[in-house]
């Protein structure tokens, strides 16, 4: 009778951990986690929030993967985010979803030559964001809840770059993308 070697068992166990760990879930709109008026709020920006991942580093697209954007235009920032592990939005317009795992749609906008900003789609079907070190919110610059980032009042962030998919989490701050 053949017995599985310890190495095979360990490998199988590791594979299970990898698969389970990679499950993505839509975030719920939970601004209180981010709006502590202290460390979390001050040190996590729109990119942290969009990916639902607290790093306390004011994360920058591409920094974790060595491809940080240096010019504030759609392509370089988008490329940086893709290098971090975010994925392109499929032609269907919906982020991948299967077997209990669902990726979160995020939107990128640009203040040309100045800055970038991200929005995320929450489990309630509405969008939310965190403008820099200010509080996370589901409202735009006109104080209207955001149903569509393309038509929301985005202040000076006039360029709409498109959407990507992020492996988020139902636990606030625990998104799975490799950002820093």
């Amino acid at each position, binding site marked *: 009778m053949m017995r599985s070697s310890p190495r095979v068992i360990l490998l199988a166990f590791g594979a299970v951990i990898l698969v389970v760990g990679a499950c993505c879930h839509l975030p719920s709109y939970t601004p209180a986690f981010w709006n502590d008026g202290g460390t979390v709020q001050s040190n996590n920006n729109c990119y942290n929030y969009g990916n639902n991942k607290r790093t306390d580093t004011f994360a920058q*697209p591409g920094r974790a993967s060595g491809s940080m954007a240096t010019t504030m235009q759609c392509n370089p920032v988008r490329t940086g985010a893709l290098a971090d592990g975010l994925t392109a939005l499929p032609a269907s317009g919906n982020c991948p979803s299967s077997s209990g795992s669902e990726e979160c749609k995020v939107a990128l906008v640009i203040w040309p030559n100045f*800055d970038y900003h991200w929005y995320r789609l929450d489990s309630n079907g509405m969008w939310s964001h965190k403008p820099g070190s200010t509080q996370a919110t589901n409202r735009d610059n006109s104080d209207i809840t955001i149903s569509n980032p393309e038509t929301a009042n985005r202040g000076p962030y006039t360029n709409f770059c498109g959407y990507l998919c992020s492996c988020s989490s139902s636990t606030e701050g625990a998104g799975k993308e490799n950002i820093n």
Partner: protein
Amino acid sequence: MNTSHRKVRFHPMWLVLPLLATGLFGWSEASAQAGEEGVQLTVLIYSGRPNPTMQLDQGAVARLEEMLAASPANADFDADTVVPSILGYTGLLIENPSGRGKLPPRLMVYKGNLESQNGGTRFLSDENGSLEGFLVETALASGQLDADVAKVLRSEVPAGSTD
């Protein structure tokens, strides 16, 4: 032939003294560093990129203290912070981690409202926007701001808002 030589005896204090000196030097250096940690001004303008920051000199700090002391309480302010969650310019942040002078550890100002954080939070009025205007002028005069950011600041807080 007898060669006499004096043996140099090792004393444990030889180990302790250099360590003490290093510790004292380190302490002094750390103390100096803590003492040198000044008052920092941050322009709250970006969402993704880090916001521009600079140190305020003693003269600016002294003037800021005067203006803050003269700012009246604003009992009617009904939000939980003066800094709005919008895209674009959202005010100025003063941080005083060393507790220098009479400034609170954190002070925010935006469009006529001041928020002072020192254990608790107090809201004050920045009458005529003079305190915000002063800080903007100070930031612009420092030459440390990117020209595009300077332009945005000037449009948000026009000249003439200074006391």
